[in-house]
């Protein structure tokens, strides 16, 4: 493999893999979506309407 091809491949892979892992870890550490209390509130709100 030529040096230029190797550098292009490796730098792209590192960049893409780093951001994939970084954002995924941030998602894992962030709060979850579900909030049952909010669910109950919204349902009540809908019924009131």
């Amino acid at each position, binding site marked *: *493999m*030529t040096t*230029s*091809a*190797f550098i*292009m*491949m490796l730098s*792209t*892979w590192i*960049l*893409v*893999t780093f*951001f*994939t892992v970084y*954002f*995924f870890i*941030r*998602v*894992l550490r*962030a*709060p*979850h*979506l*579900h*909030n049952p209390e*909010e*669910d109950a509130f*919204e*349902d009540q709100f*809908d019924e009131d309407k």
Partner: protein
Amino acid sequence: MKSKERWGSRIGLVLAMAGNAVGLGNLLRFPAQAVQNGGGAFIIPYLVSFVFMGLPLLWMEWAIGRYGGQFGHHSAPGMMDKLGKHRWLKYTGVFGIFTNLTIAAYYTYLESWTLGYVYHSLVGTFQGMSAHDVKNFFFAYVGAEGNPLVNFSGEAIFFFIITVGLNLWILSRGVSKGIEAANKIGMPLLLIFGLFLTVMAFTLHAGKFNAINDAIQGMNFLWEPKFESLTDPKVWLAAAGQIFFTLSVGLGSIHCYAAYLRKNDDIALNSLSAGFMNEFVEVVLGGSIIIPIGVAYLGLDEVKRIVGLSMGFQTMPTLFQNWGPVLAALGGLAWFGLLFFAGITSSLALGQPVVAFIHDEFHLDRKHAVRVFGILLIILAAPTILFFSHGAFDEYDQWSGTFFLVLFALIESIAFGWIFGIDRGWKEIQRGADIRIPSFFKFVIKYITPLFLLAVFCGSLIAPRDGNWQGAFSMLFSGHGWPLDPNSVIGKLFRVGVTDTRYFVDGVPTSIFIVDMTRLLLLLTMIGIAIAVAVAWNHPSKKIHQRGKQ
């Protein structure tokens, strides 16, 4: 009937969004585009397009979806309607139903091939077959051997029905128990299959498993940068096009999935995570399988000639046979299994907006909405199956899978930045965000992304012959006209380069007739959806809202 469905978990949502984006194009289209457009240098316009067009479009579509979802709309017409006071806005959402429905029709058929090929790989059908036999097997499989007028193949239809049934069953289980659960199984399996094939490709060298070249030569071929190609507009348009298609933007499926979020759920970080997951599958895995394995057995020139969809089905099974019976079966299972999971996670995302449209706007319960979608899907898939070798399949891909996607994305980017307003739009993207998006993107979303999309749109409309833009401009300015490529939108529409345009020869319909009938069917489908939108909005409950808009 207001849907109260929600995603069960954040991981499930991200995997479903990534699954929506990861499709067969990641594994078959990306490597082909890279080798034909500057090798390693292709990644520069590719990443520039990702930042200035891909990411802004992702944020826009997630924001439009979550915003529309607050009003009980989980499909494009209702969401687009909520972006402004203009009553015509809802009709721009017709594209968001049309493309999903018609792409699902031919894409599900393509997906069913992968299932059929998994079966044949496992039972050893390809053992002892020559390259020529495997190629013929494909034509026999789709009923196109000898190019009959009607491509009838019992086996292809059998696997198609199984694939449609599986899609409908998952959709009928709902967002959390169906789509989310399927993606939680499909995406990890997809990664496992992809990693297995990448390891096999990287350890392949001349002499091992009958390889004639080192697989690494294929990686060199793919990544060797030809920087002079960066001055060619064709390369930039190809890169922007690839980013566009790989992220599944301009479809209405991202909007639909995002509509099942709450008002204050994050979209900024989730979309980044799903977007980069797609890039990982495309750039790291997609670039490391088909090209190196192909080059190891066929050499550079042959791979350059056949790389793409046909190579995936007509060549790869032959190459796996060199690995011995067990590894060949495993290789076939991994390759076609990988394509199958990439396909089904996308086809579910194509189906859900249509189901949601019927459910929300026509007040049918989910199971009935899925049935209606299934009937429409089978009706629209029939021409692509029965007239596959006469261009029906390609027509669907050209109009639904290429042209209207870009058009819808262009319209929605203008609607979001200019009608809904960039200030409101920016607030919508930032609300509940778990990551801060640089404010520089506010400018990008309003000005740069629509311009990018306009360039891609115009590029597809008037693409010059062989993609030679410099030559075309020279011809234009020297008074010799514009050499339209037969595959450009205008070239297709006006049949550039076609000499015989007869509908019948000796009483038998020609491919021209089938292509025109396919276009007519697509046009009628679009008109039908527009009428459905008009009827839905004519409902008394919506009329009250419409009066409020006046």
